[in-house]
């Protein structure tokens, strides 16, 4: 009876799985392996059979290229700053919103608005606000705060150009971190916090000794997802800096895009994407290890 039942389910299982796995094979697994192959060739897009095998050359070219190194640095700085700020601000706001405050639903919805606004729109919006002439940010810094004496050409400088890119990510992302932290905070039993309060623990102690340790799962989840998102940054770089000046403000992926579709150099593009993947993979392992519960806890 049991065996019969199990066998009966194979055919329905195939029917239920087929559409999804057909898509995965054609548009995910196939491309994943194909891209690996391309990365070892001087790829000819029009006549793939004329592609020349070059071994690790594409990888070596990239690792040696100053533009690639700069893109890695940009991406790393962007990731570290945005992830840190989003986690700290998101946590602080979540703790505030977790109290019984009047209007907390309103604030929660308001803080979530930037999250649902599309990347393309907010990237253009920040480009506009950071315009060198007549931009809102320069106006505020120069004419309201008197912090600068003349307009800053944000997008003409290879370091300052990263400011709007970083700020747009923070502006758009804090609301999401807040909501995740709120979900985590609501998982902490209130009795526990009240008991600690009765025992004389102050706010800071309750935060460090109870809330943070109890939210380890949420912290790991956020850290992993945000770091992954940061390393994959594409739209804000592509629309705000466009790599200018002199290809010094690329993220890893805008550089990949340029190698591939502006220069039709698919081999180097694929090598860049695999270098990023290897890096992401190693980093994820390190992160998970670092954040794993210390033994004996």
């Amino acid at each position, binding site marked *: 009876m049991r065996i019969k039942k199990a066998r009966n389910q194979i055919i329905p299982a195939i029917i239920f799985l087929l559409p999804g796995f057909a898509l995965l094979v054609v548009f995910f697994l196939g491309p994943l392996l194909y891209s690996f192959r391309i990365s070892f060739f001087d790829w000819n897009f029009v006549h793939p059979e004329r592609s020349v095998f070059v071994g690790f050359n594409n990888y070596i070219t990239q690792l040696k290229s100053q533009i690639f190194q700069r893109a890695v640095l940009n991406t790393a700085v962007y990731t570290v700053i945005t992830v840190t700020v989003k986690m700290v601000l998101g946590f602080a706001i979540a703790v505030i919103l977790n109290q019984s405050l009047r209007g907390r639903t309103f604030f929660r919805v308001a803080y979530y*608005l930037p999250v649902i606004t599309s990347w393309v729109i907010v990237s253009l919006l920040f480009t506009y606000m950071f315009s060198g002439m007549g931009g809102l940010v320069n106006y505020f810094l120069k004419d309201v705060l008197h912090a600068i004496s003349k307009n800053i050409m944000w997008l003409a400088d290879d370091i300052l150009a990263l400011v709007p890119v970083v700020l747009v990510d923070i502006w758009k992302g804090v609301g999401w971190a807040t909501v995740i932290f709120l979900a985590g905070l609501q998982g902490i039993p209130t009795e526990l916090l009240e008991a600690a309060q009765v025992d004389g623990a102050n706010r800071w102690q309750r935060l460090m000794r109870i809330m943070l340790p109890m939210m380890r799962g949420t912290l790991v989840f956020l850290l992993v997802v945000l770091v992954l998102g940061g390393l994959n940054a594409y739209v804000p770089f592509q629309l705000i800096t466009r790599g200018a000046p002199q290809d010094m403000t690329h993220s890893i992926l805008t550089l990949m895009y340029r190698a591939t579709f502006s220069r039709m150099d698919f081999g180097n593009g694929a090598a860049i994407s695999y270098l990023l993947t290897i890096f992401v993979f190693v980093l994820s392992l390190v992160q998970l290890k670092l954040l794993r519960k210390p033994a004996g806890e």
Partner: protein
Amino acid sequence: MKKSRLTMRILSYFILLLGLGVVAVPIWYMVSTAFKPQTMVFELPPQIWPNPSTLDNFVKALTTDRFGLYFWNSLKVTLATTTLTVLVSSMLAYAFARLKFPGKEILFYILLLGMMVPPVMLIIPQFIVAHKLDLYNNLWGLVLVYVTMNISMQTFLLRGVFEDVPRDLEEAAMIDGGSPFTIFTKIVLPLSGPGLAVVVINSFLYSWEEYTWANVNIGDSINRTLPIGIALFQSEHLTEWGQVFAASLIALIPVVLVFILFQRYFVQGISTTGIKG
């Protein structure tokens, strides 16, 4: 004791209002610019509300600049993607939650791989595949890739939802001779409304705002979706910000509608994914 509580409360509101200001200023600037005539786009100091204000940007965006067409393309792509994502991922999720078959674990790991690989690294080979399958410059090329990039996460989410459907109901149906298909359509799906709503929201928002793949796969202007239309318009008309933001506001209408209609599921969907991770 009471006094420190009051101070905390005031401090809380102060921080919240400060944050609200930071959130609101760019949004206000976008909305007011959409109503500015071109001559006022870089006028400083900025006015709270442009005077004179105009609807020209909206009229032009919808008529001369074909944003109406791009809106329609985006709508088609988004509706098709959302429908297919719900269908395909609920089928997958049902198989993984309830059916017995060999290789289940390995297949599930392969599915999860889709959540770990950065999507942009697949763009080159996906572009080649789309060319081979005649999907280049075709809205179906967008839909199929969007569904693929979405199903891992959404299946993972729905599997958890389906596992919470009480088994007694299914067993009763099974004893009455119900096949897995009847159980799936008559019991599991109707009982999973909120979970399915979360999948609808996720895939709707994803496909409505997706830029990277659409930018690669769409060549002809008649097939552009809104995000590409808006970005290209800006790069071609560098200073016509009024029209850029008029088009952006039009693009945000469906998002805000979905947000208002599904507000309570938003938080639910986020906390499910959050806690599961």
